[in-house]
């Protein structure tokens, strides 16, 4: 199958959007998993590790919660402003200045509402032996044979251990991730 590469910025956006969909949409998540496991392969009956701590996410509120997160990232880190603007005309120093706003704010928002931990604690580049396959670690490269799998850790992975978004109160339009502002003189 031929796959065209997606530009970095779009991928950034895609990773954001899909990560929430994966969290909240079980069917979408299973499709992504199939993609990860290698599209055409039958799901292999591998011993899967028991689920980690129960996630504090209510799937019913999926889109509202995703919108709320976008509103949070916009408010704290101007995230929507940033991805909505075309970068082409700006110098790296302009982009750098804006990136600081986005990075600092989004980081603050994520850190105060979610606990992000790495999946593996070994240093990236270290050799690693995996006793059995698991969802936690995606195998890439010369994918053949059976466990144990020996390889080099390329990405340590991230897991959201806890997500505590503010409770929505009152009748607010959740699609309004940033209201327009009118300054009265």
């Amino acid at each position: 199958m031929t796959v065209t590469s997606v530009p970095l910025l779009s991928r950034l956006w895609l990773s954001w959007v899909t990560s929430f969909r994966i969290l909240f949409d079980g069917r979408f998540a299973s499709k992504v998993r199939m993609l990860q496991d290698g599209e055409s392969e039958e799901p292999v009956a591998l011993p899967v590790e028991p689920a980690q701590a129960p996630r504090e996410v209510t799937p019913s509120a999926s889109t509202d919660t995703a919108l709320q997160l976008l509103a949070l990232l916009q408010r704290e880190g101007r995230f929507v402003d940033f991805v909505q603007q075309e970068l082409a005309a700006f110098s790296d120093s302009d982009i750098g200045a804006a990136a600081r706003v986005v990075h600092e704010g989004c980081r603050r928002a994520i850190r105060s509402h979610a606990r992000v931990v790495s999946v593996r604690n070994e240093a990236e580049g270290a050799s690693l032996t995996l006793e059995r396959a698991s969802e936690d670690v995606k195998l890439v490269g010369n994918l053949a044979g059976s466990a144990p799998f020996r390889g080099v850790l390329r990405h340590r992975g991230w897991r959201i251990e806890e997500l505590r978004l503010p409770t929505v109160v009152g009748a607010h339009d959740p699609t309004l991730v940033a209201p327009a502002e009118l300054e009265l003189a």
Partner: protein
Amino acid sequence: MSAKFVVGIDLGTTHSALAMAELSSTDAPVRVLEIEQLVSAGAVAKCALLPSFLYFAHQSESALVLPWDGQRRFAVGEFARSRGAEAPQRVIASAKSWLSYGGIDRRAGNLPLGAPEDIEKISPVEASFRFLDHLNEAFRAARLADGEGGGDLSEQEVVLTVPASFDAGARDLTVEAALAAGFEQLTLLEEPQAALYAWIEQNGEAWRSHLRAGDRVLVVDIGGGTTDFSLIDAVEQDGSLGLQRVAVGDHILLGGDNMDLALAHVVGQELAEQGKELDRFQLSALAHACRSAKEKLLSDSSLEQVAVVLPSRGSQLLGGTIRGELRRDQVERYLLEGFFPAVAVNELPKTRPRAGLTQVGLPYATDAAITKHLAAFLARHAFADPSASATDARPPTAILFNGGVLKAEILRTRVIETLNGWLEQRGSARARVLPGEDLDLAVARGAAYYGLVRHGRGLRIRGGTARAYYVGIESPMPALPGLEPPVFALCVAPFGMEEGTVADLPPQELFVVVGEPVTFRFFGSSTRRSDPAGRVLERWRPGELEELPQIELVLPPAGRAAGDVVAVQLQASVTAIGTLKLEAIAQAPITADERWQIELSVRLAPSGSA
């Protein structure tokens, strides 16, 4: 009803916090309650700190809904703070500083200053009540969420902290706000003492090996808006170690917010020189950005500068964003040398006489050098020469830090090095640092722990009232044109009165007219520690007595004819809550135990001072 919890509340100038412990178990831990609050329009979250800001909704805004109130037209906490930056005339900040400021009538609706006409202004007392009421609502909601059923703070034992430098009047007003919130089982505790209790709680029994009899602990507490100093002695008490608070400093309106503003000013000026003009919103954003840049520079000595970026206000983030930077040399010059200069022990803070016409405003400290204020405090209470009136002047041997500003190690180091320089110069041993943790939450935690101490768990700091109190009495003399009759000061409450005690005064000749309010001038002294109740001072050193807001007595005409003159005697007592109570007792009572309470701090402070 007997309380299930003891609750410690830190009602701060910029942030409030609540900690609690169960009373039924003997080793219940003290834990911090996360306070549910509006954090942005339509979103509620639990945070350890409740910003002490109150925002009044405009008619264009929908209700500021809380889980327990769908109609609310005001908000307390994080949303109030951030919204206040966008609409500053609709927000009350620093209500606590107004509570201790005698320059306004603190029971009258005067906040927010300069509010638009649609806002019904409220008093500093009511603003404090709203913060406490919010804590009460959050406590109740948390109990319900835990499936523990009802029960609010009126049913719990509440320890509420006040700055050690709060005078009797400001304490009274704090209690008034707490009683309005329904806190019936209430005790006051001084914040530096709470910080020391938190340190004791954190160290467990090991604290006794860190402090020995003869130690004198200097507590330096620098919060967002105020700076407070106290001295607490470790003493031998019936064969074991006891603690005694021996001195407190003046109320200094100077804190972390001033530091952030100073740095914002520096960076703002640099930006202006580059032709980048900032509007009011960007200046407010600049102070926030400088705070986080300052924290980075102070916590990482390898950084030489940190970018300070002000996002554009429009939706186009790129291009409109202004980039400046805060450099290490600026932080050192303006923060370290501006607020914490390494001064000599005899460099006292500058006081600038106020201009004849001033706007109504808080009496901010005119000298930003905290180390100079510390030198002045120690000069009075620890380094005094033998001729001074303060007794038992002895240098501190240990230091405990409190308050968010002092999370920065470089600032703690500067304070301790400056102090130790003074100590060495005087031939005294260097003071050691008592390591504290969690400088934002220590006061609330310590207050809850103190609640346990009152039930016999652990050791109590003794101290009593931090000031001696005097009533001004005009001496009888013939009127001379242009000369005010001299005022004598009658000591009504000696220094160090403990809760639940009464100071008996020798008979005085005081006459009050029934039905007519009588006001007295009122003074406090934190240095005259040996005046007994009843002593009359005809003169005192400059600065020894501080004039407080006037006090007032009204004899109701019940049982007497209006215009009658009644001979009374004054009596001071300290209530179980920890407030000072002044009463006038009839010398020839017509009913049993005829007495009237004297209102503390009802009037504006007189312009002149003693």
